[in-house]
């Protein structure tokens, strides 16, 4: 338990460096495309996600990374837009396709990369890998290898905040495929009946692995499912950062003020296969090409340069900084020590005697 506490303290300084929320005017948070600092930060986040995953793709291809991986390239706006709408001390639950969420919450790229490279210096000491990556200090309650696994967990965290009278919110990410799991139904129902401060964010990238949403559900939109829980459901262009941010900000605000949960469906697309073993037999080249045209990063760059908010130089700088940051992260991560098999058995249980829990602060996985 002590570890957690120390962790929170060391991380504090880094995190405040991350421009998180756009300024609020007349109670409404400004669109990212209208505030230069926010626009720059958001663009930086999206590029960090993109470059991080390109690096991961490359490391896997060269046999330098192990296991499996699920890339969110093409989906950067939904992670970024939602997390931009959160405050410090809010939390998220993430998925198997979770690098973007983790980065958007402000995790350290080196420790993320170190985790994927199976280093002791990684966020999970090499025990978790890509599918379980989490920086608890930035409020990430964990990626999850189980489709839908994070949904009831998000409801539970929100319940804790509500019971303690804290005005904190949980954003729970999941895919379209996850909405067919019982966990989705039960988690949303609990959040609805208890008016919990959760925002359910479905990143609808049209497929659960190979199975199209056209066949996996009998309603046109995931958001239609909100009706079963008496909560607002809204579909948004998940590749439009401003649009995602706007619906998320509204939902977060409602959640924070006791208005209960919302189901957001962000329509987006993954450019890459589901995982390394995907031969893309279930979708057409044309469809992929069409969505690549709708690159969320390019769209945002075009918008903010056309409006004159940022210059071409700002754009280049954002991209280059991200590129450099990832390169540095790979380099530094690589120099970390490998995860050590020595204490596997000790690591199974949290020690009972380490710190009497009553005298320790609440375990509280956010900055």
């Amino acid at each position, binding site marked *: 338990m002590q570890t957690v506490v120390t962790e929170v303290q060391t991380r504090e300084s880094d995190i405040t460096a991350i421009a998180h929320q756009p300024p609020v005017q007349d109670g409404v948070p400004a669109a990212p495309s209208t505030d230069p600092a926010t626009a720059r930060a958001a663009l930086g986040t999206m590029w960090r996600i993109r470059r991080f995953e390109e690096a991961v793709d490359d490391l896997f291809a060269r046999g330098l990374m192990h296991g499996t991986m699920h890339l969110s390239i093409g989906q950067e706006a939904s992670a970024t837009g939602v997390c931009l709408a959160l405050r410090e001390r809010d939390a998220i639950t993430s998925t198997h396709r979770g690098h973007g969420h983790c980065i958007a919450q402000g995790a350290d790229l080196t420790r993320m990369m170190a985790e994927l490279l199976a280093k002791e210096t990684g966020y999970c000491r090499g025990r978790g890998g890509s599918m379980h990556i989490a920086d608890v200090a930035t409020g990430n309650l964990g990626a999850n290898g189980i489709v839908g696994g994070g949904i009831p967990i998000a409801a*539970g965290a929100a319940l804790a905040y509500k019971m303690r009278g804290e005005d904190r919110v949980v954003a729970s990410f999941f895919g379209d495929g996850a909405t067919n799991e019982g966990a989705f139904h*039960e988690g949303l129902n609990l959040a609805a009946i208890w008016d919990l401060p959760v925002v359910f964010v479905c990143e609808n990238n049209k497929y659960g692995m190979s199975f199209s949403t056209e066949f996996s559900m009998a309603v046109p939109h995931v958001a239609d499912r909100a009706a079963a829980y008496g909560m607002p459901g809204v579909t948004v262009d998940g590749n439009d950062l401003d649009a995602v941010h706007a619906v998320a900000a509204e939902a977060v605000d409602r959640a924070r003020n006791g208005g209960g949960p919302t189901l957001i469906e962000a329509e987006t697309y993954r450019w890459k296969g589901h995982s390394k073993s995907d031969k893309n037999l279930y979708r057409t080249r044309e469809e992929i090409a069409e969505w690549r045209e709708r690159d969320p990063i390019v769209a945002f760059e075009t918008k903010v340069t056309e409006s004159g908010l940022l210059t071409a130089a700002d754009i280049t700088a954002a991209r280059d900084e991200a590129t450099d940051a990832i390169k540095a992260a790979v380099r530094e991560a690589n120099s970390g020590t490998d995860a050590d098999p020595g204490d596997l058995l000790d690591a199974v249980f949290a020690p009972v005697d380490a710190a009497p829990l009553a005298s320790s602060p609440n375990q509280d996985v956010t900055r």
Partner: protein
Amino acid sequence: MTATLPQTETQAESRELTYSEAIREALAEAMTADDRVFMLGEDVGVYGGAFGVSGDLVHRFGKERIRDTPISELGIVGAAVGAALAGMRPIVEIQFSDFTCQAMDQIVNQAAKIHFMLGGAVSVPMVLRTPLGSGTGAAAQHSQSLEAWFAHVPGLKVVMPSTVSEVKGLLLAAIDDPNPVVFLEHKLLYRTKGHVPAGADRVPLGRSVVRREGADLTIVATGIMVSRSLEAAARLADEGIEATVVDPVTLTPLDEAPILDAVRRTGRVMLVQEAPGHVGFMSEIAARIAGSSALYSLEAPIKRLCGLDAPMPYAPALEAAMVPQLDDIVVAGRALATQEA
């Protein structure tokens, strides 16, 4: 031993309570002492719990902390995991242990593993209480004993309190524990009575208890089979056969030493459980004995006396025939003790 609650009162004071009342007392004391502790489950509120364990707690602690839930085992265990991650100390009640099947993902893939998967950055301090066992005519979907499953999952602690006097202290220790603890209560114990310390004394997890000493035979038993085995041992004693009875109490992490010691002293072992024998918890006890130097003390094959490998039937005669009864234990114990070495 870690303690959330102050350990002020003396152990001297004790009252006769039922097993249910002792559990309820632990719940009440933990909630009084620590705001983070709360309980959730189906019908735990005004109904008082399917087996009446929560009783009047909702009137004392309110609907927020004695939280009725919809019929959604997966959802509520998941909610407990999330609440634990966010700093609470949830206690979730599943009405019948059979319905943990609905929640297995959250119990096994989430609660048990998060601490390890996240490299120790967080833990999941929660307790899952659930009644198991047969004897009430509730048939195959309401009578299972699934302790072997939980015990096989690294990251879960598993407790099977068999006595009224310990159940309170064990539950308090489980609530203290920073790990997920599965707390398995036998239905037939709920109404049994015993002396319970008034204070908040913990009974530490992970300690096997020798309930009786005897030189001829060791009986290892869990749950409802502990009292049944003690009764059998008393009967055997009348015949001049003295049995040691060991109760592991905590199935994971298992305290094997008292069991192996008893085997070394007695040379003969009988393992008694209600659950079906095949790949059950007592298989592990047999494996521990046969895997240690206690093997060399064995004077006869290890006798397992377990539930039949069948679903639980409804008819009373069939239900009784399914699991070891007092007479079965006496007969098998006598046969074992008198078997030629």
